[in-house]
């Protein structure tokens, strides 16, 4: 397996995490601290452009030039290992690094623009970063510390029925780097097992999209929600209590719109939606409001998790 760093990490802020589920950032920090992971956050790093990129507003050159600037921010802090809370940031940044290293014309074009416009300090040299060695999702970093999870678990969540939704932009875009399977994704199932719980494993549509489809949710909501309903029905068929996510886009689609899709389908969907770091932080004793950020959730977390029972030592 690839080498997963536990130091010199730049925790890459996500626009959606910041304004929709800030508890994902707080939970990531909480869990990283428990596991002894060395990371920092920079106020100079800007959004990956992902939402605009996948709405076709930003082209590849716009996105990669912004990427080159963020990569320089990371290198100047001597934190060349970028770790993303959002699957879209992960896919976007990994692609930009790949293109900058592989396509000399593109790299030279962007560097020339920087040179000619007083931005020479942002220039990217071939192999400044490596896509596999430097670009990670939070789940990768947690996986690298898998053996340390169990000793930090305070609460037993094993009585709940748990399923995972692995974001497409973690699993399917750069599939050569995906840990835990692409066609049958399991990295989060393995992490949850380290928390002393067993997930339901495979279910119908497990590897399918959340249905957001970027522009589909806003310009084509019927198509978007119909695709989401495929998965929501499959989750309800298994009577799932907690669906665990790794991407804020998917998280929004399921948590914010569960009520609406319930009405459309004429069926009561009752699962709560937690990011893997929120799930882990909860199991490690994180506070609902001070760490998990429960107030940001549309489907109330306490509609399922009513009390916590401590693990038997």
């Amino acid at each position, binding site marked *: 397996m690839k080498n997963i760093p536990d130091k010199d990490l730049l925790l890459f802020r996500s626009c959606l995490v910041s304004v929709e589920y800030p508890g994902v950032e707080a939970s990531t920090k909480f869990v990283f601290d428990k596991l002894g992971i060395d990371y920092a956050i920079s106020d*100079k790093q800007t959004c990956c*452009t992902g939402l*605009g990129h996948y709405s076709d*507003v930003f*082209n590849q050159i716009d996105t990669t030039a912004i990427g080159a600037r963020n990569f320089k921010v990371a290198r100047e802090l001597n934190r060349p290992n970028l770790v993303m809370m959002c699957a879209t940031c992960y896919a976007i940044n990994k692609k930009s690094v790949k293109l900058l290293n592989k396509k000399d014309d593109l790299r030279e074009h*962007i560097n020339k623009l920087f040179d000619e416009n007083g931005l020479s300090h942002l220039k990217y040299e071939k192999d400044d970063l490596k896509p596999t060695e430097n670009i990670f999702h939070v789940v990768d970093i947690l996986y690298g510390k898998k053996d340390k999870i169990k000793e930090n678990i305070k609460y037993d969540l094993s009585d709940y029925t748990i399923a995972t939704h692995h974001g497409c932009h973690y699993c*399917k875009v750069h599939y050569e780097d995906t840990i835990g399977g692409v066609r049958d994704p399991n990295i989060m199932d393995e992490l949850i097992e380290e928390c002393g719980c067993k997930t339901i494993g495979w279910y119908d549509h497990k590897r399918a999209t959340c249905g957001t489809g970027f522009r589909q949710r806003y310009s084509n909501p019927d198509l978007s929600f119909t*695709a989401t309903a495929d998965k929501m029905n499959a989750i309800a068929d298994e009577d799932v209590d907690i669906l665990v996510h790794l991407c804020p886009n998917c998280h929004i689609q399921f948590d914010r719109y569960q009520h609406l899709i319930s009405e459309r389908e004429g069926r009561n969907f009752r699962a709560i939606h937690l990011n893997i770091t929120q799930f882990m932080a909860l199991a490690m004793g994180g506070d609902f409001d001070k760490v998990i950020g429960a107030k940001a959730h549309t489907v109330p977390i306490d509609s399922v998790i009513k009390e916590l029972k401590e693990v038997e030592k």
Partner: protein
Amino acid sequence: MTSQQKITDSPIDFAEDIIEDVKNSKDDGVLKCVQCGMCTSTCPAARHSDYNPRDIIERVLDGDVTIMEDENIWNCFYCYTCHSVCPVGNSVCEVNQILKQFAITNGIGYDKLYEYMGFADSYFTAAIGAIPEIFFEDIDRDVPGWWDFRQNLDEIRDELELDPPLMPSKEVINEVSKILTITGFKDKIDKIRESQEE
């Protein structure tokens, strides 16, 4: 067959343009397509609409540039399922994104971007990616309590002890705006805006 292909015809030129596009990460994968249909059989847009990824590649290989005007190409979810299962290493998802950029460059797809101009504005003027305000009304209608939650966001973030603040510094914003000017982004957005006002 109603039409004949002559030796001087070059339908492959269209595919070559895609191969040379900066976004393409699959080398000449598009030329290797064997029309097996794995992409279509696993595609959520094909399951629920007339979008057909296999057909897109067939038309590209036929040199059919009218595909850029086909409304159906805008139904792709960008889920990369086709990309992850293709047995010959092609990516219809990437080809689709490239086709849309061709359409935009040729002024065909401008109207598809009008609703999304908010992404351009927030990034250019504030260096942040934010859901365009044009959608707020829909979100508030569909998501109970969303607007109230957004009003209380600062309080929630404070309780979570999150910093730095959401807004980047002036220095960062200036650098980002400059980058998006020199890449041609600003000119493109201005042009799309002009077409919207016509």
